[in-house]
C-alpha cells in the first residue's frame, strides 16, 4: 500500500489537499499533511515533514507531493534522517497529482512507480475545453 505525503508552505493548503483526497474516497490509503513552518507560519519544516514520513512508515512506499520546488529541499533534508520505505518526490502539480496518485494507490497492489507515474500524468490535465 502506497502512502502520500502532502508538503506545502501553507499548513492549511496541505490539510486542504489531504481533505480533498479523503473526500473523493482516498480514505483507503494513508495521506499525511506536512505543511507550514514549525511555528505554523508560511514555510516548510523539516521536523513536520519528518513527522509526516514517520506516520507513513508502515506503507510500502511513499510519494511526496509538493506545492513549489522550494519545498523539495526540505523534503530531501528530512529524508536524510528517515530510514523507512522508499520515498519519491513528485514533479506533479499538488492537487491534481494527489488526486491521480490516490486513485492509483487505492489499488493495494499498485507500486510506488505506478503511483508516481499516475501522479505525473496530472501535468497534462486539461480543465477547460476550447
Amino acid at each position, binding site marked *: 500500500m502506497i502512502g502520500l505525503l502532502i508538503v506545502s508552505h501553507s499548513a492549511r493548503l496541505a490539510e486542504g489537499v489531504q481533505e480533498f483526497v479523503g473526500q*473523493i*474516497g482516498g480514505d483507503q490509503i494513508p495521506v499525511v499533511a506536512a505543511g507550514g513552518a514549525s511555528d505554523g507560519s508560511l514555510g516548510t519544516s523539516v521536523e513536520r515533514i519528518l513527522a509526516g514520513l514517520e506516520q507513513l512508515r508502515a506503507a510500502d512506499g511513499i510519494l511526496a507531493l509538493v506545492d513549489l520546488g522550494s519545498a523539495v529541499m526540505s523534503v530531501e533534508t528530512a529524508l536524510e534522517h528517515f530510514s523507512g520505505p522508499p520515498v519519491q518526490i513528485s514533479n506533479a502539480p499538488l492537487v491534481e497529482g494527489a488526486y491521480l496518485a*490516490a*486513485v*492509483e494507490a487505492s489499488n493495494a497492489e499498485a507500486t510506488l512507480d505506478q503511483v508516481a507515474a*499516475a501522479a505525473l500524468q*496530472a501535468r497534462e*490535465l*486539461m480543465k477547460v*475545453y476550447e
Partner: protein
Amino acid sequence: MTEVVLTVNNPVGLHARPAKVFVETVRAYKSTVTIQNLSRPQTKEVPVTAFNLLQIGVRQGHQIRLRASGEDAAEVIAALTKLVEENFGE
C-alpha cells in the same frame, strides 16, 4: 465484446469521486473497458483510467459509450451500468 450507451445524470458527471469509483469498478474485472464521450465528438474512445476520464470531461447529461472485451465483459458492463444509473450512490 459488450457495449452500452448511457446518459450520466449525477451532478458532478464522471469526475472526482464518481470517476474514482468507476475506475475501481473496472479494476475488479478482467475485461478491458473503453469509454467514449459521445457528447464531446472531439474526444476519442479511450481505456478507462482516472486521467482519461478527467480528459474526456463527462458532464451531467452527457452520453457515454462503454465497450468491454474479455471473459467477464457482460458482468463489468452490467456493473458500470448499475453504477451510472444509480448516480454513483450520490
